[in-house]
């Protein structure tokens, strides 16, 4: 009887078969097809806003890459995205599901703001490293809590890291609306940090600053760690199979907590980057939901890490792509009126298309003849 039932409803029209890793060309083909597929879905979204997709995309890409100002602005957005993307990639490599980069950014910015506002007299070469380290430590501490809760108590890290974002958001809100509020400012924000704490710009008159160099250096360091160090190997081993890694003598808890500290620390520096490179004041809550300072970069980091396949170079490319999308979306909005949250939708669209692409790389779909 059960067999009959199975025959009735279980007949697949298609069969999915695992296939051996295909040649590089096939992989590249599917990655490109995934991007094309997501741009096509994006075109539908643009069309539904009543705009010609070709025109909109032209403004998007020329707005992000056409001319010196556009490129420096894109790089200026690329910087925090590279930080958060790298931060999340470090954590995800060992399957510590850190989606709390947003909160860790804010934690970093908060402590950095404390130092930046307090130590006014210090010279730049002391103060900038000081605030950066402070940001690293605060972000690291904020990420270490969920890691410890997971390793000691088995609490799900997805939930704890994410809820940490909200706690930190309200904490920052409480500070800048209360004790830290600049009495001379019209809106809730801290007093400005010392000018010695500000990141020097790279090209006079443009917004890109030394944060870009720090971000690239950290990304290269991540590459080096993954390629050359025992710890990088352990990170991957824990990510691939924590049990097996444990049997092989790797201290899984320690790897997870270290990864969380590094991940949160890098996200913390992203917060410092925004504070000392862009805003100069610790700012409050935007749209009731994200830090005005972190602005969703922490969430975008999750997307970037996954789009980049958790590989340092991939993350760099993905962060640049995201920077184009964000910066270009604003240009597209100014030119055509297609709403700028476009890039937020595209995060989801691209990830889904990429999942389909990866599936097509690993599996073969065959039609089953009856």
């Amino acid at each position, binding site marked *: 009887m059960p067999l009959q039932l199975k025959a009735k409803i279980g007949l697949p029209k298609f069969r999915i078969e695992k296939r051996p890793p295909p040649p590089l060309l096939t992989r590249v083909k599917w990655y490109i097809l995934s991007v094309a597929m997501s741009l096509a879905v994006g075109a539908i979204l643009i069309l539904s*806003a009543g705009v010609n997709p070709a025109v909109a995309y032209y403004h998007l890409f020329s707005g992000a890459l056409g001319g010196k100002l556009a490129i420096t602005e894109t790089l200026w957005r690329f910087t925090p995205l590279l930080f958060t993307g790298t931060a999340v990639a470090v954590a995800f490599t060992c399957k510590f*599901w850190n989606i709390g980069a947003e909160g860790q950014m804010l934690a970093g910015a908060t402590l950095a703001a404390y130092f930046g506002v307090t130590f006014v007299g210090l010279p730049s070469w002391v103060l900038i490293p000081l605030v950066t380290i402070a940001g690293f430590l605060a972000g690291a501490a904020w990420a270490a809590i969920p890691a410890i809760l997971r390793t000691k108590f088995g609490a799900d890290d997805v939930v*704890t890291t994410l*809820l940490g974002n909200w706690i930190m958001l*309200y904490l920052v809100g409480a500070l800048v609306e209360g004790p830290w509020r600049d009495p001379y400012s019209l809106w809730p924000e801290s007093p400005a940090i010392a000018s010695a704490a500000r990141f020097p710009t790279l090209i006079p008159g443009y917004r890109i600053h030394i944060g870009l160099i720090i971000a690239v250096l950290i990304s290269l360091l991540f590459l080096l760690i993954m390629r050359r160090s025992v710890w990088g190997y352990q990170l991957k081993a824990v990510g691939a199979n924590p049990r097996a890694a444990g049997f092989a003598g790797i201290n899984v808890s320690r790897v997870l907590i270290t990864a969380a500290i590094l991940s949160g620390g890098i996200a913390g520096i992203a917060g410092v980057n925004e504070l000392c490179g862009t805003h100069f004041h610790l700012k409050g809550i935007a*749209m009731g*939901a994200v830090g005005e300072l972190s602005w969703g970069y922490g969430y975008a980091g999750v997307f970037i890490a996954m789009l980049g396949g958790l590989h340092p170079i991939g993350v760099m490319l993905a962060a640049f792509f995201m920077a184009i999308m964000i910066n270009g979306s604003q240009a597209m909005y100014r030119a055509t009126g297609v709403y700028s949250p476009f890039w937020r939708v595209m995060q*989801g669209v691209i990830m*889904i298309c990429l*999942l389909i692409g990866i599936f097509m790389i690993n599996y073969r779909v065959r039609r089953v003849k009856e």
Partner: protein
Amino acid sequence: MIGEVITATFVISFLAATLRMTVPLLFGTIGEAFAERSGVLNLGIEGMMLMGASVAFTTTFYTGSLWLGVGAAVVVGILLGLLMAFLTVTMGAQQHVSGLAVFFLGMGLSFYLYRIFVGELGGVPPTVTPFRPVHIPILGDIPVLGPILFQQYILVYIALLLVPIAAFIFDRTTLGLQITAVGQNPKAADTAGINVFRIRYLCLLVAGALSAVGGAWFSIAQSSMFLPLMTAGRGWVCIALVVFGNWMPYRILIGALLFGGIDALQTSLQAVGIAFPYRVLQMLPYIFTIIVLVAVARRATYPAALLKPYRREE
């Protein structure tokens, strides 16, 4: 100071508020229980809720009908559940990544669609006439109990009804047993003639529909407008509550009431103007969720096949 605040009216309005705060959590968590019992972690729930909030608002805004708004949320929830099922069940993609993809899609699309159909964010947002509490005759006039239990929103009753219904389905029906079997040992279930794929699809559709209605609560009942990320992490709280409830509806109800209580406490205290920074009060529900999760995590018995895609090796 506390004595001045804790009056009978305060307690009554606090308990009534607790029940209201429970609504989105019950919808979301019962939905999540369906998904996870069948072996799929649905991390997209926050995105589904936001889409529910957005679509329900827009539909009500244009048609004036709140129930059409709820219906639209159900439809969009089912669509997102279908997408999640396609990714995790048909393609067998990693469930964490798939869920986050759906979260991003829902988060972005919820305000993209709002801006297409309703207008700019910022400024004074347009509003709809939201659901109103229904005063049940006679029962509603009972002192104390009346205002708490019988002057509530219809969605409150529906949410509370979900608990016994889900418990009945899980424990007393063939379908419930099939769901559990698929979530514990899909291979054995398949051999016994249960269509693993169909059960998981079904559960994700239910999860999508329920969480979207939970999201609709925010825009057309609790408030009368749509704001970006207005669900404020409630979807993620649901994921914690499922663990707290050990995937059992009645325990989930307890968790939802506890969380709803903390949430109601912070809003009630804000409302009476207690001298305490309200931002700190706003943190309480999240801190509480983490503490609860830590307390129960070790004792939780996760469905054995959770996170594991099923594929027939023939």
